[in-house]
């Protein structure tokens, strides 16, 4: 029994671990050569932000993937903000102030999105509960 609990707590740990490391590198870019910043750190930050920003005139694309002129404007805007020394949070804030939460592909956790982020976790706890219940009853 003890060992089982151990095993389950390990699984929970792995799941927690993977929640932390879920930033899977993205796949595609529509960035053009003249936009790319010389400072590699800046460029990387710009990329990461762009991947989370929706191209508002496209169908389900981030501004990082989109060829639309508006997306390009936003990419350049983000890079300019980075060069001005703004941090990521300030840039996200600037963008959501201007375009609303709709622009975030990875929604913030707030009153509206609480259920969205919280529910999968509840599903998981519930699922683990079923497995533990089954295991206990089977002994």
């Amino acid at each position, binding site marked *: 029994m003890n060992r089982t609990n151990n095993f389950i707590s390990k699984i929970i740990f792995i799941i927690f671990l993977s929640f932390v490391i879920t930033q899977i590198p993205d796949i595609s870019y529509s960035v053009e050569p003249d936009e790319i910043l010389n400072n590699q750190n800046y460029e990387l930050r710009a990329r990461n932000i762009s991947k989370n920003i929706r191209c508002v005139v496209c169908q*389900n694309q981030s501004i990082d*993937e989109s060829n639309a002129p508006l997306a390009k404007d936003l990419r350049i805007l983000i890079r300019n903000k980075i060069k001005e020394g703004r941090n990521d949070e300030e840039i996200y804030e600037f963008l959501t102030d201007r375009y*609303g*939460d709709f622009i975030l*592909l990875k929604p913030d956790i707030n009153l*509206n*999105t609480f259920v969205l982020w919280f529910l999968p976790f509840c599903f998981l706890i519930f699922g683990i509960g079923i*497995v533990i219940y*089954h295991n206990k009853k089977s002994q």
Partner: protein
Amino acid sequence: MVASIGNLALWLSLIFSILQIYVSKKGKLKVISVIVNGLLISSLGSFIILMYLHIVSDFSILNVFENSHTTKPLLYKISGVWGNHEGSMLLWILVLTIFNYFIFKLYNKNNSLLISKTLKVQSLITTGFIVFTIFTSNPFKKMIVEQENGLGFNPILQDPALAIHPPLLYIGYVGLSAAFSFSVATLNLNNKENIAWYTYMKPFVLVAWAFLTIGIAIGALWAYYELGWGGWWFWDPVENASFMPWLLATALLHSLIIVEKRKSLQAWVLLLALLAFLLSVIGTFLVRSGILTSVHTFALDPSRGIYILIFTAILGGYSLLLFGKKSKNYFDKNYFNFFSKEGSILINNILMTIVCATVFLGTVYPLIIEAFTNNKISVGEPYFNATVVPIMLPAILVMGVGPLLAWNRNKKSEILKKILPSVLLTGIMSLIIVSIYKSFSLIGTLGVILAFWIISNNIVILIKKRKNFSTGMLVSHLGVGFLILGITASSVWQEEKITKLKTNSSTEINRYSIFFKDINEVVGSNYVALKGNFVVYDKEKKIVTELTPENRYYPVTNIYTTEASIHSNIFRDLYIVLGTGNKSEGWVLKIYHNPLVIWIWIGAIVIFIGGTISIFKNLEKLKKI
């Protein structure tokens, strides 16, 4: 004239379908046989006639006018039949009636009660879709004035992979209708008859699952080489619409094994069968109604959306109420130990269902928020990656060890002994891969370890020739291992280069040097294009390949497309896209070095082969009962 016959055939199939509702339960076998065959022949007839109208470019028909053009190659005139909403509904109906026919083929003295009830449910579903097609989406509608030529067809869709993508997916979605019908019929039997309903349901689930797998993979392959982003999965609502039924079908076919072997989980399996098909229909509703804007939305038409919504509500309301009322007949008091085969399948089922619920939540959440608060929010790729991947990881971990476990309880020391060889094998293979790619990434390492964990376990089973394993399972699981390897390596270790290059100069990526030879105008069958010629050299200055990406212009539809040029081998893809530019300043190029991408496609094919092996094995089983 021909179109009128097509329309008549469609109406005939409606009549046969309604007749089947009434006769399937009490009618004579001969009568049912005539009706089932009549339904199949009439729906096949209307489908073939629409195909004929597309082939001969009959522009007196609205559907042909809107979606075809005389310059279109024959293959795409044929695939154009299901490349639009109305025609795809006809294909949907045809597949429904084909499955209806196969359900009828199972009919014998011992199972007549189950099969006749199943046929009744199946004909109710079929009737619903035929009514929908005739009254909201009739493909045989005539033009007021006949036109010289058609409006053409989206050139992005003119592609061999996309030609077969919809039929494969439809076999998947509609195959689940058979599982749904069997489930409703079984619930109605109250568990009084001793009929092995699960043995009848399983081949249909296997067919649906195998075709969903290959259909989704071909869609992803198309996105990979056609959309020019180097990616293949975008968590687009319509991708989610096919992924959700796939997840439940995966859960379903695994839990069916438990029902077969242990007679446990019957109620759960019946529920899964209902939900899997309901999700297929809801997916169609979401995509076709246009309430979720997606690249696959054919037309924005609220009347269609409302019809499918009502139809789904009736289907879902009825079946779930029935389940609520009757499922207690199928409850049992069997509990599964964590360290047993059934325990591992239970975990698989729970995790697949959680992933499905999460994808569903993410897909419909923006709609819910907009309806209740008037705020518009987006739920995109970053959300799905952050939620789905962590839940999938333990599922894959368990999937590796499950087939090694015996039924009932296993001693932990024995499990350790069993998995020791594959643990060692996994360690060695993962070390090799990770040392090749050097750049350390936690998720990358984890993915590679899990992929080899599955591959090693299956190799060990194969070598030890342990009895009682299923070849289909082994092959499919091996395919999943390949798939995970490809997904991980191509997303974690992708290299990308965006640059401007003039002709007669070179650029580097990974260990390759890419020389821009020249750029020419070329004329295709219904497009004109700029075609770049690139020569790829390796470090030893040997020619590896020549790549020829194109920028195409289709005058009929006034659409520009980019055609990526890809060189694949088992280690990596070289992927090049031509952007805008001119002679003096050079052209914008996007070049990708994508490791192990090909293993995604190999994996999907191997999974499909495994599924096919299982289908045949289960059909043999059917003959024995």
